[in-house]
């Protein structure tokens, strides 16, 4: 291992070192966690827009009874791809963007533990996302029209609908192969971030001094590396059933399609916490900063997060009450589900207590953080109502569940992620987003989401089933559906305001200082955006809020702007991208039932891995 030793001292050289190489090659080969974070952000934001357009088409279809904007077949593809895209291509990678950009800065590190593995994760994620979405356009290759071969079995892909007998086209193949690729990206990132957080902490950064966002990220990564193997195997069974004629989910052979539900939700419920814990971490950073108070009960918030991580494994069958598992299983899972609301509720009280008596600064980030708390409470309460099997049986497969999931994942995760975007935008880009536009964005989105999703509670209780492409006027839900559609388009408008804000900020935005918000954590001690080496001197941490002066600890000194000694910066590498390319090639082989392509894919993967393993990692 030889690394470039950058020349020291002179200001011109230091400035050159600060920015790092530019150009297309520098981005394609980058191993810098900040650049990979930005790549994650822009890619995931693009998929978020695609998933949003799918949602608007769904709502346009449902605006009126007996709608005929899209056919039933297209509608199936729209809701399947909307769910799959938002969960795997928008929310998870938007969180990953913050893991990448912020975690090394918060723990006082120069990069993640395995910079090239990090690049590999990104390229695998990108190829998985493109593979899934290619299904919209590639119909003609399978002797079908455009918009005909996208996945159409729901984001949960229940067996035995996904068997070749019932879904003969390539739709489900796109879905399961795409998810397998994305799972590899998440797993690789999971190993990387666990090691980064445990092993690359600055001196004095004890575990109970870690920022809350870093703690919640750590719990999330443990959930990822334990939950994803389960869905990997469940999907392998679907692959074998579809490609090799096995009977893992075939009733006639003695198997039970319920195996899929158990395996999927055994993954799926931890996945819910994979989606929400990072947002909880972001909110736990934003609230103290803008209340000028330490997080109330920091250890309890951390322990609650860990407890949620463990308990998240014991509640999966509440997704399956309608299956009829029997009174004992139903009672146990009802009890565990109600119990998991306790650590979640503890956190909510901690957040409210953080605000209480604080010196509140009503920034856009704080608006989103408080919006998160309020909306997540509503989503949490409707969640507790599903915990009771008799109530759940009334709600299963109705719009009530759609209302619940959107209060949790939109009102919760998306609100939390937007809080993070407004909070860390100056750190990531060097410019402050416009606050007036940000507040307009917030209020449009807040009103829009409540108009869109609150009526769904009523629509569901009145009996409208989900995943059905239309409904009759006699059901009496026409007006409520129209309100919901108006709300959805308001959300769309709010996102346009945000896009405009980003564009305007990139041109006219106010330059950000190192620390525009007076934050307590280490990322605010360095330039915005940070130099390529992050910290000119690795800080020594003496307290949980290193940059705040508290009763116990004085604030630590910020590192000097110019490094006093040469800093080793690892260079770029092509091989993570080459290795990643092997995976979609292998998936293409399965998709087209062409055996020789798989050997090409394996060869590319192995070639990439070997070059990666034996290259001297330097500039």
């Amino acid at each position: 291992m030889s690394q470039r030793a950058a020349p020291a001292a002179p200001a011109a050289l230091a400035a050159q070192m600060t920015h790092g190489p530019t150009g297309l090659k520098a981005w394609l080969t980058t191993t810098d966690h900040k650049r990979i974070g930005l790549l994650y952000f822009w890619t995931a934001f693009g998929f978020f827009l695609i998933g949003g357009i799918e949602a608007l088409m769904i709502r346009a279809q449902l605006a009126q009874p007996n709608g005929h904007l899209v056919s039933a077949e297209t509608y199936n593809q729209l809701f399947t791809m909307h769910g799959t895209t938002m969960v795997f291509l928008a929310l998870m990678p938007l969180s990953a963007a913050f893991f990448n950009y912020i975690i090394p800065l918060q723990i006082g590190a120069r990069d993640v533990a395995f910079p090239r593995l990090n690049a590999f994760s990104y390229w695998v994620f990108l190829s998985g996302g493109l593979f899934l979405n290619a299904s919209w356009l590639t119909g003609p290759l399978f002797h079908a029209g455009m918009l005909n071969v996208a996945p159409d079995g729901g984001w949960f892909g229940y067996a035995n609908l996904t068997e070749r007998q019932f879904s003969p086209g390539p739709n489900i193949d796109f879905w399961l192969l795409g998810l397998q690729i994305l799972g590899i990206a998440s797993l690789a990132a999971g190993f990387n971030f666990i090691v980064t957080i445990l092993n690359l902490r600055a001196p004095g950064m004890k575990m109970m001094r870690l920022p809350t966002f870093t703690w919640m990220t750590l719990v999330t990564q443990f959930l990822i590396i334990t939950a994803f193997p389960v869905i990997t195997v469940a999907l392998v069974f679907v692959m074998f059933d579809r490609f090799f004629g096995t009977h893992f989910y075939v009733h006639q052979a003695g198997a039970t399609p319920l195996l899929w539900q158990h395996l999927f939700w055994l993954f799926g419920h931890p996945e819910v916490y994979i989606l929400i814990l990072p947002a909880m971490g972001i909110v736990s950073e934003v609230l103290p900063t803008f209340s000028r108070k330490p997080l109330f009960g920091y250890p309890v918030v951390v322990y609650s997060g860990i407890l949620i991580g463990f308990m998240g494994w014991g509640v999966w069958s509440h997704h399956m009450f309608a299956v009829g598992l029997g009174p004992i299983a139903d009672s146990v899972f009802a009890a565990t589900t109600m119990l998991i609301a306790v650590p979640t509720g503890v956190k909510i009280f901690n957040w409210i207590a953080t605000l209480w008596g604080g010196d509140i600064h009503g920034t856009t980030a704080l608006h989103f953080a408080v919006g998160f708390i309020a909306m997540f409470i509503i989503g949490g309460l409707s969640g507790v109502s599903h915990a009771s099997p008799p109530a759940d049986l009334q709600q299963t497969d109705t719009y009530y569940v759609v209302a619940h999931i959107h209060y949790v994942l939109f009102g919760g995760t998306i609100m939390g992620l937007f809080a993070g975007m407004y909070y860390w935008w100056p750190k990531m880009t060097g410019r402050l987003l416009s606050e007036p536009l940000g507040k307009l964005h917030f209020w449009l989105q807040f009103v829009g989401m409540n108009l869109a999703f609150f009526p769904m509670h009523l629509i569901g209780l009145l009996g409208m089933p989900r995943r059905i492409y239309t409904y009759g006027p006699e059901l009496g839900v026409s007006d409520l559906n129209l309100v919901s559609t108006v709300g959805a388009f308001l959300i769309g408008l709010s996102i346009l305001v945000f896009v405009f804000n980003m564009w305007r900020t990139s041109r006219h935005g106010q330059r950000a200082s190192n620390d525009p918000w007076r934050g307590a954590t280490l990322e605010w001690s360095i330039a915005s955006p940070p130099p390529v080496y992050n910290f000119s001197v690795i800080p020594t941490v003496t307290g949980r809020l290193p940059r705040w002066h508290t009763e116990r600890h004085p604030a630590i000194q910020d590192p000097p702007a110019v490094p006093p000694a040469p800093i080793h910066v690892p260079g770029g590498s092509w091989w993570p991208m080459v290795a990643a390319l092997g995976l979609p090639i292998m998936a293409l082989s399965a998709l087209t039932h062409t055996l020789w392509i798989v050997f090409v894919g394996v060869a590319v993967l192995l070639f990439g891995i070997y070059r990666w393993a034996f290259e001297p990692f330097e500039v």
Partner: protein
Amino acid sequence: MTHSAVAHHTSMGLDSRKMAFWTFIGSECLLFGTLISTYLIYKGKSVVGPYPHEILNIPFTSVSTFDLLLSSLVMVLALAAVQRGDMKWAKIWLLSTALLGLVFLGGQVIEFTEFVHKGLTLQTNLFGCTFFVLTGTHGAHVAVGVLWLLTLWVRAVQGKLGPANAMTVEITGLYWHFVDVVWIVIFTVVYLIQ
């Protein structure tokens, strides 16, 4: 794998690559756990034969199992040789580990072929589905391990592997022992407890 950016000083005092590998093994436990659970859930659910007791050859597989256990011992010797800088024996033991892995894979090929001749394929019944996918996944792991060991052996022959790379060999050993332990579970669950 080469070193990470900050490999030499770590907060936990444990090499980052080794820690990453332990998290990987934790993840693999869930992978094999799911496969083994599925095997157990579908045990006795096949509606047509051949059934496990008609077809599983315990003496033959016992020999394969012994072979794999022996390979773990040899892997320990390989690591010890690398650590003390004895590259002559390191090469011998690394190659021996890989060859013992190949013998195990050969045994699996013979076993699978025999089963197919006796009428058990992937598609025959649930036993066939779960058995071949579980043991096949394990076999794929052994194959990756053999490739990895042969790579180390080639590096040793080229003179590019020495005591400075002991951590690389140690991690290879972790992988190899893990795959071995998984086989002991599979052998017990599938072959011994019918």
